[in-house]
């Protein structure tokens, strides 16, 4: 294939769509805030869809953050059921992602943050190509052993708030090992979104698995 043909073929591919799910307050928006400067530095063109129950809280927080141009963030109100709009009927989120993709060409990556839910939420692969599940250590070191579908089936599991482990009596190494075990060895990363620790590795995973950069 010539360079031009390769480029044309590449342009035909759509932006990668990556879901971010996880319990309320685990750090999904904080993860996005931490990833934005990293992807900016890597030259990745990015947009975001957030879901909240009945507000635009997370969308507005990101729009005000100064980390991304406000028009690159769209909020979808999920109504009563945060998982319905990412699994059973993701129409609203698909429309929001399609809209961003039409308005912001070329676009490499769309992050879709689910409204905070419980351990059972999973993403429809009609909506996303890949999804991460964010839990945090303060929920307890035994959370991975409880094998929620989000923990078992996500493409990438993130255990956030690693800085809090000593305060809540959690053995981080054990928690990560148990998480890997219930996931048959699929990736589990530790992050601290306060300091940015571990976020480079999250960006590396996305760059490899969905942005196809290396």
């Amino acid at each position, binding site marked *: 294939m010539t360079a031009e043909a390769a480029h044309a073929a590449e342009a035909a*591919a759509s932006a*990668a769509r990556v879901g971010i799910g996880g319990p309320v307050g685990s750090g999904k928006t904080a993860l996005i805030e931490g990833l934005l400067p990293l992807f900016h530095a890597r030259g990745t063109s990015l947009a975001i869809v957030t879901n909240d129950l009945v507000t635009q809280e997370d969308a507005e927080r990101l729009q005000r953050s100064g980390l991304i141009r406000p028009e690159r963030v769209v909020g979808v109100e999920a109504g009563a059921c945060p998982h319905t709009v990412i699994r059973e009927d993701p129409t609203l989120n698909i429309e929001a992602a399609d809209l961003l993709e039409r308005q912001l060409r070329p676009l490499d990556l769309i992050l879709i943050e689910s409204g905070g839910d419980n351990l059972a939420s999973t993403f429809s692969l009609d909506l996303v*190509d890949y999804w991460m599940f964010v839990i945090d250590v303060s929920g307890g070191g035994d959370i991975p052993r409880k094998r929620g579908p989000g923990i078992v089936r996500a493409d990438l599991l993130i255990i956030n708030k690693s800085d809090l482990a000593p305060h809540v009596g959690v053995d981080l190494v054990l928690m990560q090992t148990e998480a890997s075990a219930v996931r048959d060895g699929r990736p589990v990363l530790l992050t601290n979104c306060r300091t940015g620790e571990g976020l480079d590795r999250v960006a590396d995973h996305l760059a490899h698995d969905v942005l*196809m950069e290396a």
Partner: protein
Amino acid sequence: MLRLTRIIGNATEPAIADRLHALDHDGRVETITLDAADTARKRLRVATDKGTDCAVALARSERLANGAVLLLEDARAVVVRMRETVWLALAPRDMAAALELGYFCGNLHWRVRFEGALVKVALDGPRESYLARLAQHLEDGRARLADEGEGE
């Protein structure tokens, strides 16, 4: 890394089938095996049966399917093979058990299909974890496994 950005056609189309057949003689057809659920993805990082690292990145309008041909060159072809969905067949004992079992499967968001008096559950994960969820129903006989060669 081999970039695959479009679906050229399907292995069942006669013209493509002929070329694949010729390439296959020389061992130049590589296969990507996917679970049915994963065929909904537009982006995938997967290895072929010969170990080639593939970066599949398709337009959103494309849909992977069994037999999708992602590369067809003189030197090599890449074809998708979709793993068959495995179904767990359950036979409820009576009407009351059937109502309960139907509710139960729905409550767990299991994908099911009905065949006569059987409900068949698509296994999207290890069979044991489905059996563990169904333990109560199976133990007291409200339902029994009705797979071929199983149950009474």
